[in-house]
């Protein structure tokens, strides 16, 4: 068994499939214009642009996949060796040939009628600016080398693999988030570090990139057992070992530390990172609110943006000096807020009442309709005298507490407000989850009929979920209006509802920490429906990437990034199915369809 396998020991079909997929992925990324656009962004001077990174990962991944065989229980795993590298290289080479052929096709036939971005710009990047002949050769070599590299990741020991992965990953992350790292350097008052790492025209220098990789490798090799997890465990251990009095004193210390972090964070983040944090915070609030309806009570609501709109318009109509309906008295934000909250709760009940008899898909479609209706109403001539039609309402004053003003343009100040709202909604969600009401929602989600037979008033319980969700969305909307300073119907499109839903699904339905992760990853990195995220370059491709992430998550990790325990168990039930509850499995399948 230990003999090296001959290098030709592979299934031609598998290799061809992997090559074809790789070639397709690269050509697609090039054809949609991502390659050309990203190529202007230099990551490492004279070595790597974001464009080549966008296609470079493809041969690595498929080289790795093609060379890796699934270990079958009871059979010795295949011996790793030159054969794997050969397979990886072959996949890369074939992909390179196909991609070159695509570049040649684009140069000889005009494809711009179908893919607008397949013009000379793309062809030039695909052939490394060397013309179709020599360029094709370079592309084939490029893909082959990366394919072999991908396969070698499979061949090497797991330790080495993780070191290389972390070193490469860190370097690339530091290169991609150049603007944000610079902001942070500014925040930490170490501006000098910027010129040390990056060139004035953008991008890491080769030396600094190598230095980062070397530093990370050193930390990874010698820092074993001192990582953040280990430190956390040690602190926790230390904490639990102490007497209650010391623990109580320490919890005060932790609280004080938390407040200090809260006060200092926006100052360090700087203006643009604070702006991103504010956006993430607002979507986190909306995500947590929607999670109560979808994750806890199990009602798929696709019109959630309506309540966000109610909150935003409510504040605008009551506080703006330019409100269309001047007969409404102009109020202070803090006076208007309770009114808006009550109205939102009422609207939640109003929308909820006719739809609670419905379930699953039907509920989703009807709520979708309600979301659209509300947006159209805000846009209509009928409501124009009150909400301003397409012109919306402008000059919404910002929030102030006494002499402190949280001006919308000053994202550092707004951060303080949003952080408090996020914390409040987080605590509320957590408390609700383990409350009597939360229990009744869980029962409803599991089996509505039985919940009813247990004496749970399903109508009140569902309406409560709807109106609590509505109130949370309205709070987010109110803050949004005061921050942005104006509200327009176009801010409350269906897309917003969908993005919030994607946030909680990707993060992990029903898991509060998961939703936080989802909001940071999707909204923070990719950006909200209209606002850019940290990966500014991805802005135009945001929806495409959302889609890819969503499909991938549904296929590979339907429980989300940081799932709640129950959901993870539910979705992987086959792994732990016992004969005793085989008869229940059918019920589970049905529910999956409804809740996801």
């Amino acid at each position, binding site marked *: 068994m230990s003999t090296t396998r001959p290098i030709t020991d592979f299934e031609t079909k598998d290799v061809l499939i992997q090559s074809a997929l790789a070639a397709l992925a690269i050509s697609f990324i090039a054809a949609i214009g991502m390659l050309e656009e990203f190529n202007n962004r230099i990551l490492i001077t004279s070595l790597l642009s974001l464009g080549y990174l966008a296609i470079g990962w493809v041969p690595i991944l498929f080289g790795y996949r093609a060379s890796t065989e699934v270990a079958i229980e009871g059979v010795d795993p295949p011996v790793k060796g030159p054969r794997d590298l050969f397979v990886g290289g072959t996949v890369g080479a074939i992909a390179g040939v196909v991609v070159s052929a695509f570049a040649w096709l684009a140069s000889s036939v005009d494809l711009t009628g179908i893919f607008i971005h397949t013009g000379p710009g793309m062809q030039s990047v695909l052939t490394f600016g060397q013309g179709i002949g020599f360029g094709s050769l370079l592309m084939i070599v490029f893909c082959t080398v990366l394919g072999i590299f991908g396969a070698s990741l499979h061949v090497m020991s797991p330790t080495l693999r993780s070191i290389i992965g972390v070193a490469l990953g860190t370097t690339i992350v530091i290169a991609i988030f150049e603007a944000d790292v610079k902001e942070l350097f500014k925040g930490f008052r170490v501006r000098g570090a910027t010129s040390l790492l990056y060139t004035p025209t953008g991008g890491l220098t080769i030396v600094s990139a190598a230095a980062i990789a070397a530093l990370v490798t050193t930390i990874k090799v010698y820092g074993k057992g001192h990582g953040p997890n280990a430190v956390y465990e040690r602190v926790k251990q230390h904490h639990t070992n102490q007497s209650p009095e010391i623990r109580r004193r320490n919890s005060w210390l932790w609280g004080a530390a938390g407040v200090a972090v809260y006060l200092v964070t926006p100052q360090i983040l700087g203006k643009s990172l604070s702006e991103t944090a504010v956006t993430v915070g607002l979507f986190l609030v909306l995500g947590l609110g929607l999670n109560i309806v979808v994750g806890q009570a199990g009602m798929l609501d696709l019109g959630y943006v309506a309540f966000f709109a109610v909150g935003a318009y409510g504040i605008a109509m009551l506080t703006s000096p330019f409100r269309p309906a001047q007969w409404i008295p102009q109020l202070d934000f803090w006076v208007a807020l309770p009114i808006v909250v009550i109205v939102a709760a009422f609207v939640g009940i109003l929308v909820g009442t006719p739809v609670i008899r419905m379930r699953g898909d039907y509920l989703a479609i009807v709520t979708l309709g309600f979301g659209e209706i509300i947006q159209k109403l805000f846009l209509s001539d009928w409501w124009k005298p009150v909400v301003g039609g397409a012109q919306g309402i402008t000059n919404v004053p910002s929030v102030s507490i006494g002499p402190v003003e949280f001006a919308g343009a000053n994202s550092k100040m707004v951060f303080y407000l949003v952080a408090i709202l996020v914390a409040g909604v987080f605590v509320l969600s957590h408390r609700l989850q383990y409350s009597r009401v939360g229990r009744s929602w869980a*029962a409803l989600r*599991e089996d509505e009929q039985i919940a009813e037979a*247990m004496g749970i008033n399903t109508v009140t319980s569902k309406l409560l979920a709807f109106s609590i969700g509505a109130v949370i969305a309205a709070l987010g909307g109110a803050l949004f209006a005061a921050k942005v300073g104006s509200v327009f119907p176009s801010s409350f499109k269906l897309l917003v509802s969908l993005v919030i839903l994607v946030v909680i699904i990707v993060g992990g339905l029903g898991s509060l920490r998961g939703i936080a992760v989802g909001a940071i990853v999707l909204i923070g990195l990719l950006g909200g429906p209209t606002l850019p995220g940290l990966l500014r370059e991805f802005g135009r491709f945001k929806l495409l990437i959302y889609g890819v992430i969503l499909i991938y998550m549904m296929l590979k990790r339907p429980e989300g990034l940081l799932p709640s325990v129950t959901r993870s168990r539910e979705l992987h039930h086959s792994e732990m199915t016992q004969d005793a509850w085989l008869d229940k499995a059918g019920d589970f399948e049905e529910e999956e369809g409804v809740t996801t």
Partner: protein
Amino acid sequence: MTIPATTPVLEFRNVNTHYGPVQILKDVDITIRQGEMVCLLGGNASGKTTTLKTVLGMVVPTSGKVLLDGEVISGLTTTEIVERGISMVPENRRLFARMTVLENLEIGAYLRSDDLTEDLERIFELFPRVKERLAQKAGTLSGGEQQMVAVGRAMMSRPKVLLMDEPSMGLAPVLVAQNFDIIERINKAGTTVFMVEQNANMALSIADRGYVLQTGEIVLNDTAENLLANPQMRAAYLGHTE
């Protein structure tokens, strides 16, 4: 077996129910007395489950009354009816599979706000196995254990009458026997039981009295012993085997 001469707890008086224009129950009269175990027998689509739904207020009679302790409960909401002391062990147990056993039991006591320790202790006394499984997800229990939790869940609301919907449904013969043993113990411990069942032999072997429902009408009504001996009954429901 003698019929206990105590007062009626649950009564159906000339109950008629309809689903839309279709009549399901026709002039149904049922009387269940304190501490009794009464079974309602019948084939498919005879109206057995509708009868239970009528007790719980999920189906409202078009005419006639359902009484609990002499008070009319038909027309009240399910929540109010459960509050007044009726609870159900549903067909196929239907636990909240993703919740723990303890959470399932707590949901059974959803309408109570007082201390549950005493009730939990009583259930652990009846089913020591349940205590061992408290922290486990209900879906991972074996069929027999699930039945214990389902009964325990229903008992948590301190019902005057416990409704059992097809306790033998979809279970292996060993588990069916185990199930009926559980029901018997609950009944001996003082709870009035109203059971709906297709397995007439099994049900009559532990019940005090039985009603036979046929296309919405009560066609037979006697003590369990008499029903077991009734030739009509044997032909229709008990098979011909001696």
